[in-house]
């Protein structure tokens, strides 16, 4: 009888090329996604060493971080640095013979949205990208994580990565989510519970009824923000929903190869009795909508609660952290979350820029108007998401309500393009990071679900989506 293994153990074992005495392993990489920001220096390194890309067919390039999200600005990128980075990616694709989606390709979008959309992301594979939100692809039962640029170069040159095996953590989300409470609230609650370093050194497998009940889009939201809990990779065992999502995608296997793949994928689950180094449980049934109040994704509050005060800190270090966050966020502490007025609303990003997210937001805003003092925008995660939304008439609902309807890209999630907060602006954002300056110099970010961001845009302040009518 073979030893019981976790899902992570199984994928890991299937990809080990070599193990050194101290446990550092050479891991084979099946899929490499590349974007314009973290790759130029890697390609430059290849050129200097006269190295080729080892497996061009396992490499996919797309431009997302720098591209403006209005049609005019896309056609003529003004920022010379952004333009150079975009052009460099196209040049690298041509020089090294790699598949590349430019800003005018329908398949273009945020790298973590297009991978699954194209069927490039498959269960049981190892996937890397020079981007920490690569954890998103774990929703398909792929071992996927972010890497640095030197590692990007390493993968381009060798199709492998030197890795130490991480520990196994299980996060079990039991029960059924109440109406209005979403995958975003689940992952924010988990991060609030374990802290931003809680998963450091671990791969987290998400399981339990509430995770099984999530759509693939919801599962991607959960895995996407695994990195915000410190774990480089999140995993969800593939099931019928996974297979249904992937079937007939352009890069997914076809015919008998599909059948063979599914037979393998069905073995990708944690065995009974497999060992986890730590186990966390969360009850979904009692979960309220979550809003972050501070400058770390672990700074979470429920919609029914208030911003913490400095004196709520556990010790001096924690008090200092709360004070720093309150000062930055322009808060005193003690304010009710529902009293926080916003200036901006941003719906999009690799966390919440998929069709289901846009449907949820559209449902909230249909027939209503964005508050007079709020600027609100919706940025679809890819050209295909945009097309789908337009086919369903979602764009018209958003525009009628006063939202801007944009072209796909990373947009205001990280403000490397023209979309950014002005100093002091407070934003209800569906993105993944509320770090100081993340969405713009001195910008103030509150992370929420798409429905919560949409409702805040209409009301002008945060509201409890469960009471929305």
């Amino acid at each position: 009888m073979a030893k019981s293994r976790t899902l992570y153990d199984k994928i890991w074992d299937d990809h080990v090329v070599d193990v050194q005495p101290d446990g550092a392993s050479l891991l084979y990489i099946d899929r490499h996604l590349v974007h314009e920001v973290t790759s130029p220096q890697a390609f430059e390194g290849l050129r200097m060493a006269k190295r080729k890309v080892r497996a061009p067919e396992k490499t996919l390039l797309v431009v997302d971080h720098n591209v403006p999200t209005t049609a005019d600005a896309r056609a003529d990128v003004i920022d010379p640095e952004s333009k150079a980075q975009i052009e460099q990616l196209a040049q690298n694709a041509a020089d090294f013979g790699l598949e590349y989606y430019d800003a005018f390709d329908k398949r273009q979008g945020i790298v973590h949205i297009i991978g699954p959309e194209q069927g490039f992301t498959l269960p049981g594979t190892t996937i890397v990208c020079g981007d920490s939100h690569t954890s998103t692809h774990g929703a398909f039962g792929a071992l996927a994580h972010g890497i640095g640029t030197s590692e990007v170069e390493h993968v381009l040159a060798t199709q492998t990565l030197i890795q130490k095996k991480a520990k196994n953590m299980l996060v079990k989300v039991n029960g059924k989510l109440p109406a209005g409470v979403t995958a975003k609230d689940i992952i924010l609650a988990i991060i609030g519970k374990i802290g931003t370093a809680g998963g450091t050194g671990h791969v987290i497998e998400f399981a339990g009824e509430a995770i099984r009940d999530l759509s693939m889009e919801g599962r991607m939201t959960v895995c996407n923000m695994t990195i915000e809990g410190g774990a480089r990779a999140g995993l969800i065992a593939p099931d019928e929903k996974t297979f249904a999502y992937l079937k007939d995608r352009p890069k997914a296997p076809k015919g008998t190869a599909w059948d063979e793949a599914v037979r393998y994928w069905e073995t990708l689950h944690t065995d009974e009795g497999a060992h986890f180094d730590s186990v966390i449980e969360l009850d979904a049934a009692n979960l309220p909508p979550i809003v972050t109040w501070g400058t770390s994704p672990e700074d979470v509050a429920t919609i029914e609660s208030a911003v913490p005060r400095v004196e709520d800190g556990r010790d001096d270090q924690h008090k200092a952290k709360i004070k720093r966050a309150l000062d930055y966020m322009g808060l005193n502490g003690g304010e009710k979350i529902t009293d926080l007025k916003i200036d901006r609303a941003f719906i999009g990003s690799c966390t919440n820029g998929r069709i289901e997210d846009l449907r949820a937001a559209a449902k909230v805003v249909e027939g209503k108007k964005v508050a007079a003092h709020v600027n609100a925008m919706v940025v679809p995660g890819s050209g295909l998401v945009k097309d789908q939304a337009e086919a369903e008439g979602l764009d018209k609902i958003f525009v009628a309500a006063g939202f801007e309807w944009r072209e796909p890209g990373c947009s205001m999630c990280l403000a490397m393009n023209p979309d950014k907060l002005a100093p002091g602006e407070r934003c209800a954002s569906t993105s993944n990071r509320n770090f100081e300056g993340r969405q713009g110099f001195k910008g103030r970010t509150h992370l929420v679900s798409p429905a919560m961001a949409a409702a805040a845009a209409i009301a002008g302040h945060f509201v409890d989506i469960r009471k929305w009518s």
Partner: protein
Amino acid sequence: MLHEVARGAEWQDHSGGPKQGYFLLTRGAGRLIERPNLATLWRPSDTTDLNPMDKFTTLTGVAAPLPITNIDTDMIIPKQYLKTIARTGLGSGLFSELRFKEDGSEIPDFVLNQPAYRKATIIVAEDNFGCGSSREHAPWALLDYGIRCVISTSFADIFYNNCFQNGILPAKVSKEDLKKLMDDASRGANATLSIDLAKQEITGPDGGVVKFDIDESNKHCLLNGLDAIGLTLVKEAQISSFEEKHNKHAWA
């Protein structure tokens, strides 16, 4: 290579005096032109001898205290500096939102702006240093500024790996020892620490010795300045034979 050359700009090196000189500006550091007062802080003379593949054996230098928890990579190097296509020149953007006001002038209170710490080569910080974005620009910025070692109780995984690719030592110490080292680092002109990687020891200004953790393979690569790609390519035959079997899977 997309380099611009700024000529005759005034800048300052670690020894303090203003100098006339040439230096290379990368596109990322091109921000220097927009905010010329930053140029006075750019210190190419200190960093030209820092190469990612330089060996790391011992280091004695000024340690700057950053008593902040969860210092994320957006804080270490904000997004506007990520538009470079080079690895160098990012030192000017290191901690820029903590170091500089909106008009580009210095925030005097920030530790690296204080006279005693301008020459810092070591940073001492609270838990979970380097969390967030995978940007290797963070270690590139640290290295370009002149930082060769960061001491904390814990590091985020991706940042931690990125350090070793760039010859930076991320030294993990216990909570108690970090408190000692944070005190040591707070002594201004006397905040000098000595690090011995082979012995995994940090010696404070009073001679007190603290041990730090590092695994053997990372230690070996740092001590010998090894290039990971070169090491892996030695295993080419193994990779090829793995790949041949692996590629037969329908899902691979």
